[in-house]
């Protein structure tokens, strides 16, 4: 058989490049993540779709069903799950027009077009909707959040008893005559017809609606949104925080400094511990965001003397970076140290002091040391060094982002602390107008 005809192509950005923290030259992610975990205990930057969780739970439920009925082996659980993820993605896209929330939407869209509605469902590449669906799909990215939220037991199979009852109450009974063909499709793979009145397609379209019924809002709301089942979390705190998010912020917008400060004030009235954690986040981000912006900037300044770069920054940013409180930052150090090491923490302290006093040359030197300490801990060379006559010797030349200007600096915000994930989940579960 002759080889298939192919066409040259330009490359799209790989979806994996968007997964945060996969580069992280200053190792900031483990630090902000630790601070964020006190206020959002169970969600991640990736696990933000409630219907994604529905799919995860149904996939695990059906895998257990198939094993029980002898239609699959325990080791087939992942394959069953991958097929369920594909079925769910096609149904949600075709029946309800869902786009951005679906992982692998580009492949889903393309396959629906090319296959004229008869889409392949397979546990291997013939059916995958992501370059590696096992790793970058719901199984890889949602399972930990779901387990932390008390939806899944340990192990690769099944759901908790409560979850099972919820699924049967809300979804499984709606399968009606579609249960057998769906189980067959999940067990063996095949084709899903998204054009006609296919019973599997119709039943799932009825289950996976964009809107949530009262029972769903209650179930997902308690576990995913409010983190009631998270072990070791401050009781009710995430629920209180969510209430404040609804009252004080725009759930459709990404978190920013003014919002966080208003949350601190509001939290002080209902939960001092929460207010304290949010205030610590404000102090940390006031430092991490400009430090990251400055580091990205110096990566595009190869060969330039540190003093020249510092002078340019000074005229761009003004006499000092705002909102840097030395005493408050000192209070964060033990927590920072727990998520990094002594060399990184020392460099961060130096950088904080320098930015706070407008010593931009000192800040650049500290950033170079900070990156060097991070890369040393990874067994790699630093991205930038100070070369002869204190010129920047940049080894890794990244894309140069626009340097925020002085007007943007006071509200600069780069890291989500998982709060955006909580906003997204809250938004999905709020009553539809």
């Amino acid at each position, binding site marked *: 058989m002759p080889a298939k005809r192919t066409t040259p192509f330009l490359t799209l950005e790989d979806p994996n490049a968007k997964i945060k923290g996969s580069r992280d030259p200053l190792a900031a992610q483990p630090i902000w993540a630790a601070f964020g975990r006190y206020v959002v205990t169970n969600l991640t930057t990736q696990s933000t779709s409630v219907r994604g969780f529905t799919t995860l739970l149904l996939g695990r439920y059906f895998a257990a069903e198939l094993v029980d009925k002898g239609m699959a082996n325990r080791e087939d659980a992942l394959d069953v799950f991958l097929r369920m993820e594909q079925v769910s993605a096609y149904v949600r896209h075709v029946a309800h027009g869902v786009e951005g929330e679906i992982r692998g939407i580009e*492949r889903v869209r393309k396959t629906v077009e090319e296959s004229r509605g008869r889409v392949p469902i397979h546990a291997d590449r013939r059916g995958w909707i992501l370059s590696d669906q096992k790793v970058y799909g719901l199984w890889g990215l949602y399972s930990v959040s779901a387990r932390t939220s008390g939806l899944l037991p340990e192990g690769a199979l099944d759901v908790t008893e409560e979850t099972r009852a919820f699924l049967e109450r809300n979804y499984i009974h709606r399968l009606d005559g579609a249960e057998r063909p769906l189980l067959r499709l999940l067990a063996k793979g095949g084709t899903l017809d998204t054009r006609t009145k296919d019973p599997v397609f119709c039943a799932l379209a009825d289950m996976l609606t964009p809107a949530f019924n009262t029972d769903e809002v209650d179930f997902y709301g308690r576990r995913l949104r409010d983190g009631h089942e998270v072990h070791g979390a401050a009781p009710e705190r995430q629920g209180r925080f969510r209430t404040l998010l609804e009252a004080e912020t725009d759930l459709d917008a990404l978190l920013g400094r003014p919002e966080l400060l208003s949350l601190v004030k509001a939290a002080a009235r209902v939960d001092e511990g929460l207010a304290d954690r949010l205030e610590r986040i404000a102090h940390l981000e006031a430092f991490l965001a400009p430090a990251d912006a400055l580091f990205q900037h110096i990566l595009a300044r190869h060969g330039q003397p540190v003093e020249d770069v510092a002078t340019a920054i000074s005229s761009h940013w003004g006499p000092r970076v705002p909102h840097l409180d030395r005493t408050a930052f000192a209070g964060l150090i033990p927590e920072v140290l727990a998520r990094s090491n002594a060399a990184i923490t020392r460099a961060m302290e130096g950088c904080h002091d320098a930015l706070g006093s407008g010593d931009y040359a000192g800040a650049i030197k500290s950033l170079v040391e900070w990156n060097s300490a991070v890369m040393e801990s990874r067994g790699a060379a630093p991205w930038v060094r100070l070369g002869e006559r204190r010129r920047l010797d940049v080894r890794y030349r990244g894309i140069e982002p626009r340097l925020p200007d002085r007007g943007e600096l006071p509200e600069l915000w780069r890291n989500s602390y998982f709060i955006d994930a909580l906003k997204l989940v809250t938004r999905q579960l709020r009553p539809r107008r």
Partner: protein
Amino acid sequence: MSSATVPMEVLSRRLGDAIDGRRLRVGVFTTFSFDPAFFELQVLPLLFPDYSFSQPDKVRRAQLDDALRTVEPLAVYYDRQALAQDSEPAQLGYRRIDVGRRTGCFHPKVLLLLVDDHHEEGEFVHEALIVGLLSANLTRAGWWENLECAHLEEIKDREADNQPCPFRTDLLALIQLIKWSVREDDDQSALDRVRKFVLTRTQTQRVERRKSRGTYHTRIFCGEKQSLAEWLRDLHLRDESLNLEVLSPFFDGDGAGPLPALQDAVRPRETRVYLPTKLDGEAEVSQDAYAAIAEVARWAQLPTDVAARGKSAEAQGTQPRHVHAKVYRLWRKGGPDLLVVGSPNLSTPGHSRATAGNLEAAFLVDVADSGYPQGWWLEPVDQAAERFAETVPTEEDGLEGVGLNLSLQYDWSTNELSYRLLK
């Protein structure tokens, strides 16, 4: 042009589709800059579709170590000057062959994957060779982030496909040039195995004609005997009255480089050249090169959605992706639509014969019947550039000269440390 009118795909996904679940026998990658950790953790897993790899690096490496045992040889050739400094070192057992050339740099981005190819009717398993020529280095920026170009072809065993392969001779020349770039004592068993397949298992009949039924045959340029301009001249494109579009991130420091020779070889009706520009409007080309190219061509830009980072709110306002693709497009409406895609920049070393400049590799493919609308990809820039890069960007940016040509290798199975010191 917009993203809807040009083929755009995720590179790793396209490679997965090309492998199509088949078992890998032999693999050869060549690259200019090389990030071993990225290659091991993100590219190698694509070669083993049957495995389910874990997210944690340590576990993933252990699984890959297992997977690599199922492959005969696997090798990566890279330019000695271009080992990524910011990467973790290599940790897995495959051949890493550093190349130092007398002229120019080792610049081709080639992948050669010999895979099992099950015959539809019988049980006999043939092999098939996936040949990819790219602009993407084996780095995270190359495979995940930049706007790059690529083309993948497959050559079947002659018993599975009796059609002659029009680029078979070119491919053998490219393999030979890669072999000659390397010291004699380097283990080139992977490349030898691929060469043997091409020599002994593929249809040997030569394709002498330039085109069949109005479509140009697919070819490979590698500078074996000619510069790119001379090679294109032999295709007799002068009478086709084609437009020329050039997408290249790097240029000579001064002058128009190889562009006039290229224009003389194909006599385009109009030439447009992509102008790499920073977010603040600074042209990433020297003032001298800018002026010289402006005399013979129109500077142009890509429509914003082609290099955009997505449509999400988060992506809005961010820097577009770095354009690292090298594409030479020769086309006219209703006529040929030839794409030269691969590694050669619009620079003198990039277009030279391999013995005079860089070693490069690019596919030439006629896509006139591929169904994509025929129109300009690039849009002319309205305003002349006013500011230019102080130091002209080059492919070598960020690389450090090697002071001592010393290679160290530790074999864990025999506990032997070996070294090689090159003069």
